[in-house]
């Protein structure tokens, strides 16, 4: 999985030396080589994902991978906050859930057009992110975490109470797969491809974002807010931008999830969903884009495998989480990079 080298481009600590190399000279050829190997490994992964439904006819597995891609989008969006901007949000399910409900309401009542449902879900998530983010980022640390949790629990309560809109505890059933032009994405394989398109688009957009001047501003805020202010950055606006962008992509994941599941319930806005996606980010490796996707894959695959054997899967996931927090703080990506470093050192000797 050489795509993990992608960290060299996405991880903040490494971005700048690469950039400096380009400006200072000397490291130019090396950075071009690493860029080429990133491209090659990225295309390899993409090709694998493209042929996957043909090679693996199992509907069950196609669904699992579809879910991994959806939660990969969700986890990447949260990592923009946690890993890049240093804002530990514990309420990211709010945006996922609001978009899921909105897309489901539009799809069941008005139109199952892909663009209409998706746009409605994403816009709803963005509209929620502006005021909640605007308030939450006035505080920081544990207070920020508690405020985001509180906002998401308000959304959860609304999902319970506004029965006329949300179906209350029954949720909204019968959400159809979206249609676009002649396509209806109703088979597992076609829906998989639809999700894959959004996944790849999200990955590329966020990758561009984190290497852009704005992305570097996010990283600057994470590293040192006070110095960012001293050199003229409006830290509040930068945090809000990060919060809203994260909310929009979280909403995209939520809308896709409502089609995927065909059913939306208050459970999808519950705080445990925020907890799960945070675990995905941390297990995979915060501050990278590949990490959260691997974290989502790890989480969902373990969940699927273990829960078919025993109902103790939360215990097992909890132990895995403790392991990563205590022994592998940089997550799966960090473990991989450490292993590569060890192997390189051994090869040199």
């Amino acid at each position: 999985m050489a795509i993990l080298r992608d960290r060299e481009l996405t991880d903040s600590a490494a971005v700048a030396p690469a950039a400096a190399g380009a400006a200072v000279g000397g490291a130019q050829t090396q950075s071009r080589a690493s860029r080429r190997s990133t491209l090659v490994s990225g295309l390899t992964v993409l090709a694998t994902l493209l042929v996957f439904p043909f090679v693996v006819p199992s509907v069950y597995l196609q669904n699992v991978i579809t879910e991994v891609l959806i939660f990969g989008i969700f986890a990447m969006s949260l990592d923009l906050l946690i890993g890049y901007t240093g804002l530990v949000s514990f309420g990211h399910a709010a945006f996922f859930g609001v978009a899921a409900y909105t897309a489901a309401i539009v799809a069941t009542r008005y139109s199952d057009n892909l663009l209409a449902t998706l746009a409605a879900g994403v816009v709803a998530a963005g509209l929620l992110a502006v005021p909640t983010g605007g308030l939450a980022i006035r505080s920081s640390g544990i207070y920020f975490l508690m405020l985001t949790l509180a906002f998401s629990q308000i959304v959860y309560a609304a999902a319970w109470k506004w029965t006329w809109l949300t179906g209350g505890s029954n949720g909204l059933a019968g959400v159809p797969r979206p249609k676009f032009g002649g396509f209806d994405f109703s088979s597992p394989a076609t829906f998989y491809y639809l999700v894959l398109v959004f996944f790849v688009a999200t990955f590329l957009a966020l990758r561009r974002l984190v290497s852009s001047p704005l992305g570097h501003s996010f990283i600057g805020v994470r590293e040192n807010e006070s110095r960012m202010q001293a050199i003229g950055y409006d830290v509040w606006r930068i945090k809000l931008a990060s919060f809203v962008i994260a909310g929009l992509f979280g909403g995209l994941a939520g809308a896709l999830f409502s089609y995927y599941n065909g059913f939306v319930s208050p459970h999808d806005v519950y705080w445990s969903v925020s907890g799960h996606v945070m675990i995905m980010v941390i297990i995979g490796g915060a501050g990278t884009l590949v990490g959260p996707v691997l974290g989502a894959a790890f989480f969902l695959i373990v969940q699927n495998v273990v829960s078919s054997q025993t109902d103790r899967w939360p215990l097992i996931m909890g132990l895995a989480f403790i392991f990563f927090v205590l022994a592998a703080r940089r997550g799966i990506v960090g473990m991989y990079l450490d292993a590569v470093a060890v192997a390189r050192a051994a090869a040199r000797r």
Partner: protein
Amino acid sequence: MTDLLRVEHVERHFGGLRALNGVDLAVATRERLAVIGPNGAGKTTLFNVIAGELSPTSGRVLLGGEDVTRRRPDQRAVRGLGRTFQKNNLFLGLSVFENVRLAVQRRHGVSWNAFSPAASHRTVMAETTEQLDTVRLRDRAGATVRELSYGEQRQLEVAVALACRPRLLLLDEPTAGMSPAETVGMIDLVKGLPPDLTLLIIEHDMDVVFALADRIVVLHHGEVLAEGRPEEVRKNPRVMAVYLGTDVTASGLVGADGVKLADCHSLADLVGGPPIEGERGALGP
């Protein structure tokens, strides 16, 4: 001509402590002003009030004639105020290059661009390299801040502030902890700054003060004890009393005002007094 910076009757209290107790200060464009005073005199607090990190308990701060007392630090930075910190305040996990680049990209107004790689902004990249050249950190561009020596971090601290191309630059003890060679390099750097830059420098090293300042302000207990041209301040009896008070020599280590002997060593040069007995033996390198 209006003053670039005016500080009017500024007080700043911390609980019962009056860290600034009615400070008035006017700094003309192009002036190079040194702020000196014993430890705890309120020098850094004054910088924090000027830069907006602390709001004054009372009084006003005017920048280029505009009342900026209620403005945030970033708003003052955008208006041309740059500063360094007494305690290094850098982007620790980022490279030297990135530390400076963040300041340069803000000044070029591209910080909100989310669609093109930062490395594709040629002018920003070129100016960053240029800035690193001026502080002789170009070779270290790829190193993270953590990998730098303390002296190099001090240089980077100045580079980040300079990268904002400020009209008014506040340097808080830029040479503190530097080797003699690094100190000379810093003096040369500051001397070589564009003449239209207005400078306030807090410094304990009197060689640096005399090399750089047109005017000196002495703070003591949050008040301006004396101000004037270096020769005038040097002869001022009140300044001499503060720096060479009998208590200092008597107690050997700490004076009545809590003035540490370590500072008196350099400040003794200011008032031209004899070296304090036993000083080098007690605290010298």
